[in-house]
């Protein structure tokens, strides 16, 4: 079966050829800690929590950390920024979505959060980010999940977003389970994407080429964006593999829901395709 990528968006117009000139290498005076990206939601039923645990990132109980949170909801600039007090050792940083709603004087929010946690005592090392965990839960128990923040910028062995292809083997579309795909567009520009769904035999269905608006998350219902998905997979056991193409890097997550109970108890990130592995 021949598969080709959707046409690459034209980003620049051609310009007359000019001989490249040497440029001085630009170096930061001191490297900064990398941010991680996450989904953040509170709609009155579903809630979010950010956790940064000092001793998950250092064995020094006195090393101090501080966190900057920037919340995005479609605009290029954040709609809210939160700066934590320094914390260390057994002081855990936990930020609840209710705190954001109070700050925004809103009753609902769904968007992106950029989490930049920094050590106040040590410079970034070979792994220049602080692990942050995002939890999601619902009052009626219909959602339960916990995922690490996505390291968006690469340059390390944990090149989470090294590829424009990502995949999830084991996606469900059958009588018992339905799947949806959450994608985070952190870019300040629209991003095109496409879903390729494979049955166990390799039979394939594709979505149309879709677009996510800038600085927003979107949850795609698999059986809506890939008509025939349930029939395709159900004929071969109900599970298959999903491949996602995007014009720019998009953190991706697969959520699987029990059709009878409505409970989502499977919520984890995809892995990049054709790129170095992550752990």
């Amino acid at each position: 079966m021949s598969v080709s990528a959707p046409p690459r968006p034209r980003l620049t117009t051609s310009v007359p050829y000019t001989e490249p000139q040497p440029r001085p290498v630009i170096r930061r005076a001191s490297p900064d800690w990398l941010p991680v990206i996450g989904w953040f939601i509170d709609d009155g039923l579903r809630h979010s929590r950010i956790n940064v645990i000092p001793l998950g990132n250092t064995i020094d109980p006195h090393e101090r950390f501080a966190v900057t949170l920037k919340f995005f909801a479609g605009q290029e600039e954040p709609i809210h920024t939160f700066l934590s007090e320094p914390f260390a050792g057994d002081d855990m940083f936990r930020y609840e979505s209710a705190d954001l709603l109070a700050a925004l004087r809103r009753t609902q929010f769904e968007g992106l959060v950029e989490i930049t946690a920094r050590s106040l005592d040590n410079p970034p090392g070979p792994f220049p980010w602080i692990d942050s965990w995002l939890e999601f839960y619902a009052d009626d128990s219909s959602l339960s999940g916990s995922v690490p923040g996505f390291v968006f910028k690469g340059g390390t062995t944990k090149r989470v977003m090294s590829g424009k292809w990502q995949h999830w083997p084991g996606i469900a579309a059958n009588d018992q389970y339905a799947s949806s795909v959450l994608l985070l567009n952190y870019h300040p520009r629209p991003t095109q994407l496409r879903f390729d769904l494979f049955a166990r035999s390799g039979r394939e269905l594709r979505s149309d080429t879709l677009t996510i608006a800038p600085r927003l998350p979107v949850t795609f219902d698999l059986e809506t964006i890939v008509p025939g998905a349930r029939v395709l997979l159900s004929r071969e056991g109900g599970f298959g593999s999903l491949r996602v193409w995007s014009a720019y890097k998009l953190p991706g997550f697969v959520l699987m829901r029990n059709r009878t109970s409505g409970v989502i108890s499977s919520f984890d990130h995809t892995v990049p395709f054709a790129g170095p592995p992550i752990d």
Partner: protein
Amino acid sequence: MASWYRDAIDMRTRICMSNLEVPEAPTLCQPVTVLLTLFDSDGGELAARRYPLRRNASLVVETSDLLPPARRGHVMSGQVRIDFEGPQLGSSRAYLHWYNERGLTSSHEKFGLSIPAVGGYWTVPSVQDSDDYRVHLAITNLDERPYTSTITLKDADGAALDTTLDLPRNGSRFVSLTELFDGAADLLSGRPGVLYFGNNHQPAMYYYFVANQRLGTWRAQHL
């Protein structure tokens, strides 16, 4: 690659892999084989089987189908080793389904047996103990040597309970918070705590599972 499985009444395991084309270079994708090896909790080999995986095909295997009939439904904890025998095009990561009649939860294996360093300790970031949120730990030893670690549970104020865990080579454990610690619920007092593994130098794989006993579901997450 390695991961953890359970084949019991309350949780069964399914292994999912794919061999998808890189669309820019489809001819690089070739048929491969995948070798699955199951161990018991003491690290003894229970079963091994090799599967063909065609181009763009996916492999979905129930661990119970691999196990010897006498062991089916009776493996409370085990390591599964997954060897993808062919060119690595990047789509060979395995995901595990852990499921029962009420729910399904999924996460991925550890790629390779070398674990990147953590700056601190392997940490479960939010530990609670209630009927809706009961933490279980699944740990597999990926080292050639026996694995020993302290496990520390701390409440929101830093008060702690400690215990230790020992695993033989290829061994694994699945254990609840209440089995590990007397008085965990009293310590946590309804507020989220944290849990640390003191051994941050030996390769091991850590998942935690949250049991919602009211719904009868599990939710898995790797550390």
